[in-house]
């Protein structure tokens, strides 16, 4: 063995191949194993909208990016240190983000004439054969052939044998970063429990990849990345949709109310349905409705009956639900709407990320119809934000919309488990049956939260009617009285504002009120903005950072913090939406940092925008 060890602080790897190559599985295995080892990690799966786009083509490329290191990792990384390209299209799509002198592991078989043609590369310009990759460390390996040889003893078909090639690659990368194969071997054994041959073949391919790294002399170094310093506790890897589902489940258990998810499958929100459907034993109903509208309406029906009504979707589906969300606002029933945003408008970019539904969330209904709108900042933050959404909905009898997005929904990070006992209590406004009164029930009589006390059907002597027509205050009877309508509009709005009483005060993520420039972000951009600001502060820039998770109502002290700044920037993945709220609320002439490419911010993009503005103005 002639290779030596090199220590690194952090590494970004991109696995890329055809969408049938098992790239997502490979990436997830590496991520899980790396988290298990003790590095901090952030992941970013990036896959086509088509289930099976034409094999070998550029639209068919599936990617999995991961960034791990010995310190806090904020983002999946701007550029890759290592690019694993299983075919020509994967190389073509991803090469532009490979760092100078970065490592390329290319599968020779994926660069044959057929694959070059599919990737629209002329046959005489095979990048593995000409000098175009000279500025990188190119490792040409015939992964397909080596895999087939490794698994030959199992006499699998040609296709089955070739399918093990992702494990060969994974084994090789494990070797490159000194990772143990044990966890993945256990995974393969459990996944192919009923197909022993397939399991053995995959394990063999994994080991063959590892040993290939060991015996071949083509790699100069192996790399070591020390464990990250993290606080003690039990950790797991979690993505946003998992965290969201678990947060809902925790809220159901702590409030002792059944959970009802009324929903319709849509990318990238469907995994919430899949996850919650596994947990019926916790008193969870998952209703896959005939359409988006029926999903939210059934959730409203369940809330009306005293359950926690939740609906989940993405932008186009949310558009369909809006009339019903207005009904829930009028009925003043608890309802949680989870919007996992994607690129829009219309069908837009189903598998890509965007923050462009903020205005839809805040204003997208007929009439004066305020909602509580909140946005988790990270993958694991979805757990507590989902929990808080239910808490607010139940305690203020109001619809709450959570703005997640494709990036935090599918990306994953290590998470220190918060057991259910660590979460705050939830006090619903459903009237217990044993507290039913003899006197006539006034369904729109309000408590200190301005919310109503809800007598659910089946409660003796409290029969009453509610509906979408304007309600008379207190009695809840239909009222067309002009003064009453104005009063009710104001009351519904005031009730939403009241939620500021239980949301945390805003603080500076970085810097303070005397900093020269304030940068504001919200939701899933937390990682990129934080990484950019941290780096800039180290480089000597005087910057403050605020990251907002409660968008309506805004934290009550936000104005107090913002007023100190003449120079403000708002970074968001849309054409400038939250910036309008900042201008409207605080009369500040903020400058936008915007990206609308279906991809998260790169750290350097934010840094460049800040530096440019800073040098001119601060």
């Amino acid at each position: 063995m002639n290779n030596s060890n090199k220590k690194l602080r952090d590494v970004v790897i991109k696995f890329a191949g055809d969408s049938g190559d098992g790239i997502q599985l490979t990436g997830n295995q590496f991520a899980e194993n790396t988290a298990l080892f003790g590095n901090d990690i952030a992941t970013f799966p990036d896959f086509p909208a088509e289930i099976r786009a034409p094999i070998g083509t550029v639209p068919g490329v599936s990617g999995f990016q991961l960034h791990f290191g010995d310190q806090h990792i904020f983002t999946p990384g701007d550029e890759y240190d290592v690019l694993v390209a299983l075919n020509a299209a994967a190389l073509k799509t991803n090469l532009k983000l490979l760092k100078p002198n970065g490592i390329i592991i290319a599968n020779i078989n994926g660069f044959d004439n057929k694959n070059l043609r599919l990737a629209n590369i002329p046959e005489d310009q095979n990048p593995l054969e000409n000098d175009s990759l000279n500025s990188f460390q190119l490792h040409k390996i015939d992964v397909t052939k080596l895999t087939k040889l490794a698994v030959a003893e199992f006499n699998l078909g040609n296709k089955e044998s070739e399918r093990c090639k992702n494990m060969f690659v994974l084994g090789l990368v494990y070797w490159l970063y000194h990772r143990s194969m044990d966890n993945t071997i256990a995974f393969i054994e459990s996944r192919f429990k009923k197909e022993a041959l397939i399991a053995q073949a995959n394990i063999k391919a994994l080991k063959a990849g590892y040993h290939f790294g060991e015996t071949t002399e083509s790699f100069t170094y192996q790399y070591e990345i020390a464990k990250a310093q993290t606080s003690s506790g039990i950790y797991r890897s979690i993505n946003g949709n998992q965290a969201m589902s678990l947060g809902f489940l925790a809220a159901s258990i702590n409030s002792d109310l059944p959970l009802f998810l009324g929903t319709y499958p849509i990318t990238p929100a469907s995994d919430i349905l899949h996850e919650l459907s596994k947990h019926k034993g916790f008193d969870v109903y998952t209703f896959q409705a005939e359409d988006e509208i029926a999903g939210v309406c059934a959730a409203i029906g369940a809330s009306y009956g005293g359950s926690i009504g939740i609906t989940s979707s993405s932008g186009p589906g949310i558009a369909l639900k809006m009339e019903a969300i207005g009904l829930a606002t009028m009925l003043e029933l608890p309802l949680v709407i989870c919007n996992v945003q994607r690129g829009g408008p219309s069908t837009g970019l189903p598998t890509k990320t965007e923050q462009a539904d903020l205005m839809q969330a805040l204003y997208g209904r007929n009439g004066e119809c305020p909602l509580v709108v909140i946005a988790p900042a990270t993958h694991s933050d979805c757990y507590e934000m989902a929990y808080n959404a239910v808490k607010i909905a139940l305690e203020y009898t109001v619809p709450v919309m959570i703005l997640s997005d494709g990036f935090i929904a599918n990306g994953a990070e290590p998470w220190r488990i918060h057991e259910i006992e660590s979460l705050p209590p939830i006090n619903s406004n459903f009237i217990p049956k044993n507290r039913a009164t003899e006197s006539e029930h006034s369904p729109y009589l309000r408590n200190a939260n301005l919310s109503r006390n809800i007598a659910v059907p089946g409660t003796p002597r409290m029969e009453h009617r509610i509906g979408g027509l304007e309600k008379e205050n207190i009695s809840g009877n239909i009222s067309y009285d002009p003064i009453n309508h104005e009063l009710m509009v104001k009351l519904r709005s005031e009730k939403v504002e009241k939620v500021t009483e239980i949301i945390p005060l805003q603080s500076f993520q970085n810097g303070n009120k005397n900093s020269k420039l304030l940068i504001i972000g919200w939701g899933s951009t937390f990682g990129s903005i934080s990484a950019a600001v941290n780096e800039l502060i180290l480089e000597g820039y005087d910057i403050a950072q605020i990251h907002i998770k409660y968008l309506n109502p805004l934290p009550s002290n936000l104005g107090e913090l913002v007023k100190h700044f003449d120079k403000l920037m708002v970074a968001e993945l849309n054409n400038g939406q939250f910036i309008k709220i900042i201008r409207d609320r605080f009369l500040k002439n903020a400058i936008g940092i915007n990206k609308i490419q279906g991809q998260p911010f790169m750290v350097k993009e934010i840094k460049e925008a800040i530096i440019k503005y800073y040098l001119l103005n601060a």
Partner: protein
Amino acid sequence: MHNTNEIEIFTAKDLETNQEVRWCPGCGDYAILNSVKKVLPELGQPKHEFVFISGIGCSSRFPYYMNTYGMHSIHGRATAVATGLKITRPELSVWVITGDGDALSIGGNHLIHTLRRNPDLNILLFNNQIYGLTKGQFSPTSELGKVTKSSPMGTVESPFNPLALCLGANATFIARTLDKDAKHQQEIYKRAYHHKGASLVEIYQNCNVFNDEAFDVFTDKESKFINGIYLEHQKPLIFNNGTKGIRLNGLIPEVFDINESSVNECMVHDENDKTKAYILTQFFDDPSMPRPFGILYCNPNKPTLENGFNDQLKHYEIEDKKLAFNRLLKTKTSWEVK
């Protein structure tokens, strides 16, 4: 103190609310409201366990006039709201009040899926073949050529055959009744209540402002039994005061003169026979056939949606949820940092 085991007796009078009924004078909706009020106290379920959920339209004001639990929801979606409620609260008696526009136009999708899923709801479809609340446009049940405000030269589209549509959606209970026949209505509502599954009752309801006399041929004393046929389980299909019968020529129904033949030739109604029910629904499109009233089809054996859901919940029920949840948080691959 109230004894919870004892059902509090209530009367039709107790079902009145403090809301003034605002339907047009002479509207068929009044008769339906009164019949439902008459039936409820006879069902043996306490008043606070009844829920009426409606969509939008004249008929959908119904819940405001019924002193039970009630929700006036949004256009076309009452079946969806009711489904969510019934799944989570199976012990409640949930009724859906809807109209021809609400159920068959804007809410058509929800209606067919609700029937296919079979939650134990009682769906009362007030069919007046017109849009009343929006003041007189044609509806999906208006006859071809109907002149209305939105079709001054007559419509160019054919109507739904509502019960055939519902049967096609695999409904387990379909029936037809009339606003002007209180006794018939009440019998049907009771049967709908006792049917375990989604019951769809089409009610011919007169809109005396925008579509007056639409159903007179079925309600006038002189023509009622000539144009209508009243179905009874296991009884021969006879109408026109016992003078005419319906027999099957293969699968083709035909009217015949009983006096010239024998009552034994009559097709015998079997409400559990789906093929016969299908034949009955097709009378709608044949002007030579009388219109069937009563229960066309009833299948008591299909499982209900709420039982399906709640059986699963019970089967997988977790005793100590907090403990199980904390275990769930720790996946097979969680790790400890000390």
